């Protein structure tokens, strides 16, 4: 049981990394570069969209590049 949970978590590691690290990283880069975001979008949402643009393909292909 424990093994199955760990294996599933491991398989989801790109998604976990995208949410846990890339999303706030992209948001903070946007904030610090003072970019004006479209539609008054909050930096965190923009960060999530940018992170997911990298994360979803990585999750499906098993590699980031």
């Amino acid at each position, binding site marked *: 049981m424990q093994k199955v949970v760990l294996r599933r978590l491991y398989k989801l590691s*790109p998604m976990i990394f995208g949410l846990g690290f890339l999303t706030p*990283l992209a948001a*903070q880069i946007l904030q610090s570069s003072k970019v004006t975001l479209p539609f008054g979008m909050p930096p965190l949402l923009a960060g999530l969209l940018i992170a997911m643009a990298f994360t979803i393909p*990585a999750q499906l*292909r098993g590699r980031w590049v």
Partner: protein
Amino acid sequence: MSNRDLSMLTPKELARIERDIARKHIGKFPWLSVTAGIGVFLCWLALWPLVFMDVIPVWAGFVAATVLAIIGYLPSHEAQHDIIARPGSRLRWLNEVVGHVSTVPLALPFDLARATHREHHLHTNHPELDPDYGSSAAGPLKAIWKAIQNIQPRSKGGHNAYSRTLLRLGRKDVLKGAALYRVTWFLTLFTMAWTGHAIEAAALWWLPHHVGYVYIQYYLSWAPHHPAKETARYRNTRSFRAALGNIGSLGMQYHVVHHLHPRIPFLRTPQAYWEMKPVLEAQGARVEDL
């Protein structure tokens, strides 16, 4: 040595001369490696307040952290071979401290590095048994690309090859320790990121980890073993002339001596190489490039 005719000697006699040369270099306490190992860790720790307090810019912190992450592997490598102190000796604790702390900037668990590196020495260039075999490639650019591929989540090489090696060896303890280390590393990065310090965490730890892994794979795994087709003692590793010189290649130009005599301290390897070269040539070693 250069005045002596070695062509008449048997491989056994040549090996004896080689061992005598090696013995002159083994057993010297590697002060510089110990100082460098602990120094790398302390310098890397110091980067955090320096960057947080804007004493140095983030990009400079990234460059410094990357250099430290790469350099830090070398003292750890000495510790992997028990060069600082052997098991059971009075300074064994120092061997372990240096091994563990010097690879923190690289986020590499020391026990994992030690166990898999020993397998690399035992089975150099063996497609199934050498955990570093995944770094083999046809040329320098392909080697860099291969190193990048090896750090991908579902790659065949890199950490996944190390996991397979540890399972084959029945070292689940090391595997569990390495998994815990990696989870802790990720959780630290996540915590920093969600508390507003993602850029600093990326610059001082996440990116240096990746750049360092690629650099180390290139110079420590690929370059000294290329083309990685032979497994014999005198043929599985080579000396070579690195484009970035001996310092830029992390001293790997003389790696052939390290594979033959792993307990010679890193900084004494070049001297040992030049003393041994005629013997190595007579033994058929791959020393023609340097």
